[in-house]
């Protein structure tokens, strides 16, 4: 399936993309999406993605459609969902 991933902050800085389409298998998890992103943007490995596990580095996380946060990378996204790779800062 094809998923849209919106990139914010560091993800956008590193990829120079606002949004990318990711092709993964129909039973893929969010971790598979992270792996696909890391393959496409190797610069994600380290600052954004833990190379050994494909976990997202804290404080980055996925929000699905802007409405709910994925609490685990084992969640299986659905086709047509928009994944927001984001974080939020505080203060200022």
């Amino acid at each position, binding site marked *: 399936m094809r998923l849209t991933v*919106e990139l*914010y*902050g*560091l993800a*956008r*800085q590193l990829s120079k993309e606002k949004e990318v389409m990711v092709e993964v298998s129909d039973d893929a998890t969010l971790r598979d999406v992270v792996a696909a992103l890391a393959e496409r943007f190797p610069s994600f490995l*380290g*600052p*954004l993605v833990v190379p050994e596990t494909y976990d997202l*580095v*804290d*404080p980055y*996380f996925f*929000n699905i*459609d*802007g*409405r*709910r*946060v*994925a*609490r685990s990378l084992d969640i299986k996204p659905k086709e047509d969902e928009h994944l*927001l790779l*984001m*974080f*939020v*800062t*505080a*203060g*200022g």
Partner: protein
Amino acid sequence: MFAYAGKILHIDLTNQKTRVERVGEDFLKKYVGGVCLAARLAYDNTPKGADPLSPENALCLATGAFCGTIVPVGNKYSIATKSPLTGFIGDCLSSSYFAASIKRAGYDGIAIKGKAERPIYLFIDDDIVQFRDASGLWGMETWQTEEAIRSEIGDETVRVASAGPAGEKLVLFANVTNDRQRQAGRTGPGAVMGSKNLKAIAIRGTQPIPVADLEGLSKACLELSQTAQGTKTEKYRILGTPSNVLTLNRLGILPTRNFQQGVFEAAEKISGEYMHEHYTDKAVSCAGCPIACEQNVTVKEGAYAGTRTSIDYESLFANGSLCGIDYFPGIIKAIELCDRYGMDTMSTGVTVAWAMECFERGILTKEDFDGLEPYFGNHEAATALIEKIARREGIGDLLAQGVKRASEKVGKGSKHFAMHAKGLEMCGYDPRGLQTFALGCAVGTRGPCHNRSLAYEPDVRGEVDRFKAEPGRGHVAKDAEEFAAILDTMMFCKFIRGCFKDLYADSARLYTLTTGIEITPEEIKKLGERAWNLKKAFNIREGWTKDDDWLPPRFLKDPIPEGTSKGCVVKPKDLRMMIDAYYQARGWTPEGLIPKEKLIELGLEDIAEDIGV
């Protein structure tokens, strides 16, 4: 005694007298520093019912245990005073070299009362306090004031905190500026300085600050600094807090056109990313900070060419999307003017946005604005209004009082969209799409504040359903407040909070290594609760009632019209339910008052006698 000076400096401006109060380990361990210590000083030194702009109101500064030491991000100070904007506790934080100078001069805190006969500035030269004539400084902008004082004293190492022209004119949201671009920004401490004819506080501190275990502390600080230069703070280093613009816009909670919308169609043009590409010169840090979050920007061409300032998210939303302005140089200009005149960028932007909505609705006319046409998006009118506010000229005299008072005077339905709680203008997260934060905004002791209530975090990070109100949010909001209060009392910058493995244990360890005073993680946790109850006690003494914990009508009646949070509103019955749950979680009465037993449990026995029920 290590790290602490053990002294509070009391200054009476009326009689030009000073005295030093000795404070012991027990007192310092109980209040530690920062917001908690400053609030205690304000409680003790400001009499009940004092007019905030009268000589009786005390302006209290407090450093922290780590201030002036090698502990990273510990060079901060707090100001607490009775806020002229809210009539309740006004507690602010600022940072950098001025903070360290207070400690190096030999003081943990300073309490200033009275009113000078004519404009003066204080020069605290270690043990010597001079009351110097400031008639030549009166009217000067903040940046000029710092330079002029250093030049007069003839020492570039002197650190200065000053009120700008806005503070002199008693603009109720005037701030205090130190080290050029750090501000104790909210609730109007600059107006309190102005009311005292106090233009500035200059400090030359030369004394060493010994710590209890230098070797152990060095090791712990190195570890913390290394973590703070890693991935956990990269978000602050690269784009700074302006990176929030696009994410909050996507979540439909970017305050836009005076909270009429939660999505700004031109968000890309005011984003951190856009700023970084077109305007950022460099990121700079406060004294002793390994993160360097502050984004210095310059306008390179056009009508505002040469305008320079630093920008964070809250200044950006308030003077950008909230005013419908997508012209970045215009936003930079607005923020620069606020900084030079010494005004809180947030309250200023929210007030200008209110004026814009009044204009668009025909409540205030072109004639009221002296020929200006402040429709949303008109950056030239916005900057002109900022000038008028700072000088209290024309409509600026009304706007200088903030949106609560201005809307009460103007009437005609404008209170509906006067975006404040307790008189303090809103911060940059639309609480309709963040139900826990809605509670945090309503019950905040200084008014709605993202820095005092971190309750937006569980909403945004999905620890709770941000669209749902439920009784459990009472505990969530309480915990978020106390977490923030610990940071503000230990005096850690909030940006380092993600670098601790365990805030309570790590803070306790650093505190003991620094001061030699044993403290447990449980005592650190209790500190947050003590700080919050102390501030609440101040408010109760000043006449707080349950009705003060509420939100402006727009949040309760007008759903967000579009975007991801479309349809969201704060239902009054939900808000009441969450507030009741919050009071219960805090161990307060259903009326929000503090039982004597709770205050005694927190070691605030004297305050229990004053206001406990």
